[in-house]
């Protein structure tokens, strides 16, 4: 029903190009793991290797402790929800969902009964006689999910499963996916380039870039205390303030900022602060700043400001809508020091 996954130093090379440059990742049984990153970061390659569609150039993949390298997709305890769903257009929904069971030799009545259950699980009870072409995008996505889950895989792989849906539907499906995962208990590995989706759904988020893992962990930790500048920037807007270590603190144009550090004296560092942590009021003062851009976004106002103290370092902030901040205004901003992350420059 569920199984842990061990990925150890997996590399994948296409000619001269490194698609995966040594990825090590452990996913626990029953975990909802989301691989997130820009296109070409290697996340889909990693999913292909997990699913049994391509071989790693080096390294090991174990599911439930069993070595998977060289085992074809058909014989793995995994199934996949494909990006384009890959429903069989010439089969009814019921036959689509029952296909995996048919391949496992299950009798017709039993597999159809099971397929009916699965369609019910994804909210398509009674639609089994339809053809995939008669469905909307969201419904197809559900059928693909039902089809993949019908064979009770230990691990379900989802390749941008919500990518083709419009925003509202995508948000709704996120919650549903999560709920279904809790019910079936299988390990889910989900690939997306949408960081909001990733954070909303994941037990463990894995940020990938250029064939490497930049950061991984619970979404909140990764968001709030990113392990790399890339991870910091990818998961949402971030202000970066350069600094140098002096006396165990990072010294910046705004003075000493952030947590204490063990880094050697003189090391170059960057301090990261989310825009929502810049606000008028208590905290480490950034002094007077000039608003150079302001965009009303409904729940808040997104502004870009230039601090008088550091006119070369534009900062972005989210201000309450009530606060008047038009272009050209001078306001004072402070930083919630508790939320600062200190990263060593590489």
């Amino acid at each position, binding site marked *: 029903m569920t199984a842990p996954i061990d990925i150890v130093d997996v590399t994948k090379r296409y000619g001269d190009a490194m698609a995966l440059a040594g990825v090590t990742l452990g996913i626990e049984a029953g975990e909802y793991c989301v691989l997130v990153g820009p296109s070409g970061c290697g996340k889909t390659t990693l999913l292909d290797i997990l699913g049994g569609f391509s071989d790693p150039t080096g390294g090991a993949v174990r599911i439930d402790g069993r070595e998977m390298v060289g085992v074809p997709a*058909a014989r793995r305890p995994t*199934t*996949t929800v*494909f990006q384009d769903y*890959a429903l*069989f257009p*010439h089969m009814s929904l019921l036959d689509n969902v029952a296909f995996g069971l048919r391949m496992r030799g299950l009798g017709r009545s039993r597999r159809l009964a099971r397929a009916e259950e699965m369609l019910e699980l994804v909210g398509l009870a009674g639609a089994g006689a339809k053809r995939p072409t008669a469905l909307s995008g969201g419904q197809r996505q559900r059928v693909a999910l039902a089809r*993949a889950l019908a*064979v009770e895989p230990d691990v379900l792989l989802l390749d941008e499963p919500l990518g083709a849906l419009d925003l509202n539907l995508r948000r709704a499906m996120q919650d549903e996916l999560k709920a279904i995962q809790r019910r079936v208990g299988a390990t889910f590995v989900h690939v997306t380039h949408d960081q909001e989706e990733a954070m909303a759904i994941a037990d463990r988020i894995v940020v990938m870039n250029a064939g490497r893992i930049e950061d991984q962990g619970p979404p909140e930790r990764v968001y709030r205390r990113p392990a790399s500048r890339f991870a910091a920037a990818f998961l949402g807007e971030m202000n970066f303030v350069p600094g140098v270590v002096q006396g165990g603190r990072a010294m910046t144009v705004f003075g000493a900022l952030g947590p204490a550090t063990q880094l050697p004296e003189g090391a170059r560092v960057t301090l990261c602060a989310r825009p929502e942590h810049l606000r008028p009021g208590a905290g480490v003062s950034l002094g007077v700043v000039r608003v150079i851009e302001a965009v009303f976004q409904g729940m808040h106002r997104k502004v870009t400001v230039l601090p008088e103290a550091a006119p070369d370092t534009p900062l972005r902030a989210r201000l309450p809508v009530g606060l008047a901040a038009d272009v050209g205004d001078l306001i004072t901003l402070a930083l919630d020091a508790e939320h600062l992350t200190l990263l060593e420059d590489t």
Partner: protein
Amino acid sequence: MMRFLICAGYMALLYGFIFLPVGVLALYSFQDGRFPIPPFQGFSLRWHIEVLGDSDLMAALAHSLMVAFASSAVAVTLGFLAARAVAGGRLPGARAIRAALTAPLSVSYLVIGLGLLASFNLMGQGLSLSTVAVGHIVINTPLCFAICAAAIGPAQMAAERAARDLGASELRVMWLITAPMILPALLAAFLLSVTFSWDEFIIAFLLSRFDVTLPVEIWSLLRSGLNPKTNAVGSLVFMVSAVAVLGVELTMMRRR
């Protein structure tokens, strides 16, 4: 207006040219006289009836159908398998293989037939309808391959991947997923192949012995003298082919 007239005039002229021989052929197959030449002496079904009662022609017709269906079935199978291999994207030397498989398309049937004749002679293989079928498979496999390869696209590849992921063996992937998905193309390839084989003369002429196909029988009919039966059998062949083409057309239309 001028443009319309020019277009309509040109079309009329060319369609006239295209239909002229067929029309004349059909008309004089109803000739009530011994010769299929003007003047038209009156309408008679005599020659059509004679064709249907000619045991040699009817045997040749049966042979033609047999060769056409058997060779097309093999050609479609070979073409389909190869097309699937090439479409997968993991075939080493796919370009070269594609070129090799389509090469017979540009070689004249006479040369293919002669080569096979010489080879069968050297092998001590006697000629029969089977050897004709072998020749027809050679000329039809590239055609079936090209049609199937064009029909297998990303959608088919994705569905195959999904089926494999769900535990399907390769045979079942092909039988349950790929083949039904490109069924219209398979049928089109099959029917096209049937019409090609059905109408092929020179290979059938060179590679057959006692049992001959219809075009070869028509050829010997043609050499034995002027005869409206030739017209009648020509019209009948036309009808059979037209039905096959209509079949292709309808299956293609259904896919749209």
